[in-house]
Each structure stands twice: as C-alpha cells, then as structure tokens.
C-alpha cells in the first residue's frame, strides 16, 4: 500500500535550534532501493537530518519532495516511513508480537492479513520463538531485531535507522550489520542509515554522506570517499590518522619540521600552510634513507595480534601513527616510509 518511489529529493533542507544551525542546506537525492549512510562525528547533525526526514522535527528551511510531490508538510504518521531508533524505543507494555503488529493495526489492516505479516516479519528477524515475550525480557540484540521488525512489517517506502547498532557489543554488531544488509536486499528496501562508525558505513552503504557541523563534506560511493576524501576532515574521519601540519614547497612536495614528503595535491595549493594526510597502514619501516622517509622515535607500542600499532614522535614533536608487522620497541629510532601516492595534501 505504500507505493515505492523512484526518487526522494531532499532539497536544501535546514534545521536550526535557536541560533545554532544543526543542519545546513542538505541537498541529496535518494533513488529507490538505495542504501544511503549519513556519517559524521557526534553532534554533526545526523539525527537532526534523519528526524527532519521522518517528520519528527519541523524544517526551518528547504523542502522534501518524493517523485515531485512535497512530503515535508505531512505529519510523520502520514509519510509511510519506518524508523529504527538508537535505543529501540519499543513499547514496554506490549509483547513482541503486539509491538510488531502495532503499525498494522494503526493502518487498520485486517486481522488475518495482520497475523500473516507479523509472522513473516518475526521469521525474517528470527524471533518467532520470542513472540510472546515483553521487551524487558529480551537481550539487546533481540530488542534490536524487534525494532527492525516493527519498522519493516509496514513495508515502508523508506526505512530510517539512527545508529541502530551503537548499543550492541562488538560481535553482535557485526552479526546485525549483515542482517540489516540482508533485509535491505531481500525486501528491496530503501534505507537511510545514520552512524558515526566509518567501518559500518563503508560496509553497508551504496552511498555515503559525510557531515560535519551540519554541513555536507562529501557525497559519494564508499570507494570514492575512502580513497579520495574531499578534505582533511573527511580524510581524518576515513582513517587518515596522520594529519601533519606542513608547508608547501612545490606543487607536490611539502616540508614539515625535520622531513619532506611528496604527495598528491588535492586542493590545488601552491604555497603556504597545508596538511599532509596518510593512513597508519600505509607507513612501512624503511631500510635506507630516500624519498618520503621520515625518522621518528618510537614511544608507545600496542599489541594487535599480527600487527603492532605504534606511536612515534617526529623531530618537530608531532605524533606519527604507524601500523606495521615489524616488531618495534619503545625507544627505537626508526626510519619510516610512505608511498607518495598515499600522501594526500589538503588545505589546512
């Protein structure tokens, strides 16, 4: 009964709380069947964006169009979207079955039809055996699955998820992650997924939207965002832990205190201050001095199985983060190397 849509256009949507602008002109088009992840650090406006989309927060600017028709003027219950909340927000006074059936009875679906669809949804999230329990009697992962079942049983045209996995432990999180992706594919859902975990976003989404301070930083496929971050903030968020303050010397070489690096100039800088960004995993231990080598003193070594996470101190005092299989010890003076194509140079 909720007809699928071809295109949802979020047209320059803004939301302010008093003076503070939590979301600034978000402009995004979601295609039917797509899995979009909203990604960003805490407080960047992800939940705000999702709540605006759901209709739980009125917009202060812009509009939302579904196949050309405005939906931002509709109250949340009329939009036909499903939502999974961060803390699940299950109805504590209803059994699992009645929680899942709630939306169907709100839409006056006939009893037999309702039972069938609830059974189907419970089977999909593997909770058939727990249907009679109350939310307080379920584990976190089970509650999570009830919340998902409650949202998808309505076959919503759009499913919104606000950090649905953040309250789970690491193992369960991985398991539920695949579950969510599986449901998205088998049911042909369109999903907007909010998370602050870049790994989760990369694993799940067809497209990422990276936010910072309410402003979109980059929109793109996981590969694009991972390999070609648009600016230093996206880079920092995508695992470029080394963000060294440097100065431009030529268009593709930069100098820091005690080192010189060649890299890819992403912002077309020619002079002045810049930031050299690279991942800890791209750093290796070098035997001889050469291009793109830096000398640093190892300070902290963390054991991570096959690899070690090393924090070393550069001559200028900045920390250098390295992930390496070489065995290093605190106090070692080590020569490190970064390939030039892995060093991205951004405006500061």
């Amino acid at each position: 009964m909720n007809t699928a849509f071809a295109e949802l256009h979020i047209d320059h949507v803004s939301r302010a709380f008093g003076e503070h602008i939590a979301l600034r002109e978000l402009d995004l088009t979601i295609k039917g069947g797509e899995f979009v992840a909203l990604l960003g650090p805490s407080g960047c406006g992800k939940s705000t964006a999702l709540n605006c989309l759901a209709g739980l927060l009125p917009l202060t600017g812009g509009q939302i169009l579904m196949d050309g028709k405005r939906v931002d003027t509709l109250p949340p219950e009329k939009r036909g979207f499903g939502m999974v909340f961060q803390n699940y927000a299950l109805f504590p006074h209803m059994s699992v079955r009645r929680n899942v059936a709630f939306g169907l009875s709100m839409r006056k679906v006939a009893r037999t039809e309702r039972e069938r669809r609830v059974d189907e949804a419970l089977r999909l999230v593997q909770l058939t055996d727990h249907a009679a329990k109350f939310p307080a009697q379920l584990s976190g992962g089970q509650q999570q699955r009830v919340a998902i079942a409650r949202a998808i049983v309505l076959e919503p045209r759009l499913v919104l998820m606000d950090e649905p996995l953040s309250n789970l432990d690491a193992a369960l999180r991985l398991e539920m992650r695949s579950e969510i992706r599986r449901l998205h594919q088998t049911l042909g859902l369109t999903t907007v997924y909010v998370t602050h975990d870049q790994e989760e976003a990369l694993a799940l989404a067809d497209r990422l939207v990276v936010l910072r301070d309410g402003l979109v930083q980059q929109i793109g496929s996981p590969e694009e965002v991972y390999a070609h971050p648009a600016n230093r903030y996206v880079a920092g968020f995508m695992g470029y832990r080394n963000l060294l303050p440097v100065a431009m010397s030529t268009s593709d070489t930069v100098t820091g205190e005690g080192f010189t690096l060649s890299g890819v100039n992403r912002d077309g800088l020619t002079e002045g201050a810049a930031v050299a960004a690279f991942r800890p995993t791209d750093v290796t231990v070098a035997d001889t001095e050469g291009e793109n080598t830096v000398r640093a003193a190892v300070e902290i070594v963390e054991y991570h199985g096959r690899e070690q996470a090393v924090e070393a101190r550069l001559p200028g005092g900045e920390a250098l983060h390295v992930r390496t299989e070489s065995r290093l010890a605190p106090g070692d003076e080590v020569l490190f190397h970064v390939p030039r194509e892995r060093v991205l140079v951004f405006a500061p």
Partner: protein
Amino acid sequence: MRLGGRRRKSSGVSTAQLPAGRTAERPEYDPVRGPSGRTPSENLDPPIPAKDFRRRPLTVGGWLVWGAVAFFLVNLVGLVASVVVNSFAVTWFDTWWPSGLTAQYYSMAWQEMALLDVLVVTLQVSAAVVVLSVLIGVPTAYALARRTFFGKRLITVLFLLPILLPPMTYGIPLATVLYKFDLAGSMTGVIIANLVPSVPFVVLTMTPFIEQIDPKIEAAARMCGANTAAVFGRVLAPLLVPGILAASILVLVRTVGMFELTFLTAGPGSQTLVVSLYEAMFSAGIRAQQAVDAMAVIYTGSMLVLLVIALRFVNPTQLVTRLKE
C-alpha cells in the same frame, strides 16, 4: 493487569533488592511499577541487605528513639481506643471501662444524622473530584513535562501555590466568589472547591512520571502511523496507568479528609463525612456523645480502608517524594 504485582514482589527477594549489576533476571513489564519495572523510590533505596540492619546492636540513642516512637504510638492507640470504646459504651463515667457495651449508637448515628446520605455525598464528591482532576491535570502535566516555553515558571508557580497556601486563605475568597455565583452550598460548589488543590496535586505528581517516559517511544508510535489520539490512547495511557492510579488515590484520600474547603462551601445537603462529624461535635450535647463517636469511628474506618488501598499502589516513602520541586 495484575494489580497485586507490587505486593507479591515486595515480599521476599525481588530483583529490585539486589544491588545494581546483580539483577537476577530481567523484570517483566509491570503496569503498577511502570516502565522501568521498579517504583522510583525503590530505585533510590540503598541496597543494604537485611542482615546488616538486624545485626546492628541498639545503642542508647537507638533505645531513646524507639522508646519515644513507642510512647507516641501507645498514646495514639489510647487516643483512638478511647473513641472506639466510647462509641460502643452504654454509659462511661469516671471509670476505666464503660458499664456495658452496645452497638445501638451506631444505628442511632446512622438514622439521626442521615449517615447514608452523608456517605453517598462523600462518595459522589470524591469520585467527581478524582475524575475531573485527572482529566484536567494529566494533560497539563504532559504539556509541562514535554515542553519548555516562555512563562513556564509562572505557570508552575501558579500550580504550586494552591498546595503551599493554607486552604483557609484561598478558601474564604473562593467561598465568597461561589456565594456570589450562587454555587456555594451545592454539591457543585463543594466539588469545585476541592478541585482547587487537587488539580495542582495531580499535575505535580504526574509531571515526573511523564518525564520518565522516553519521548522516543511516542516518536516510534508516530512512525508506526499512530495519530495523536492513538499515541495517547494506545501508548501513553497504558504507561501512565500506575501514575494515574497513585495520583487518584492520593487525591481521594485528600478529598475525603479535606475539612476546611468543604466546610466553607458545603450547605445542608452537600456535607461530606468530615464536615458533618465536625458539626456533630460542635453541637455536642444535643446528641449522645457515643453517637458522635460512632460517627468518628466510621470516618476513621473508611479513611483506613482508603489508606490501606492506597498503600498497595503507592510506596509510603514515595507518597510525597514527588512534591519536591
């Protein structure tokens, strides 16, 4: 709904008595205890195991305190017993015990003072006050709990004042106004007067109850397609039942016991039990003292029943906690 749930759980070791982190099993949702499965006061009570208290030897201070409590209680029992015994006395002058016992004064009180009518009036007034104050108070409490807006402090103070001021201070002008509008002396007048402290009382007890319900649950209901009426009827109301019950019972106890406001506004046909008891005592000498006492016993008896019911729903330590600003 199992209304006895709280009682059953409070005997023996319940999960609430275990220290945090040692929860034996997840509690089932319990309509009387509310969404968290515990009453607020149980959350607050420190988890001191039973034996810690029992094994503590009583000090001199302890004996003094308990001695004083015992002295207070003994005199209280004597006080109540004086009235009860006298209500059954044939005659009682200057002796330890009356000359004989009889129940005739109860039937006398029943007939002469039209006790049945008085009880019916009391019941009607308190039922009306409970229903109306819940109907007016709960929505107000909801708005106050969920929204911050300009002038909220002023409104909160306005709702606090009728509880803080002695009933006499606003009772007299209120009665004057009711006389002006020809409402005093009627049952409507008595109900209106009793609503004045009851509505704020419901607002103050319900506000923290509503604050404790996660607004996300309401949002979730909306996302499931529930309109405002359904959110209230299907989601909020069941969650608020424990709070509404507690507030209603406290309002009931207060209304049955409210002397001043009823006294100021009641007429001949609209007196509640307390007021006609006062009238009977004030005009002592017209009637046998025993009949007045019989009436007093009936009053206390009904209050006691109410209190026992109330304590099944409301933890005594919680009765007034919520008055805290």
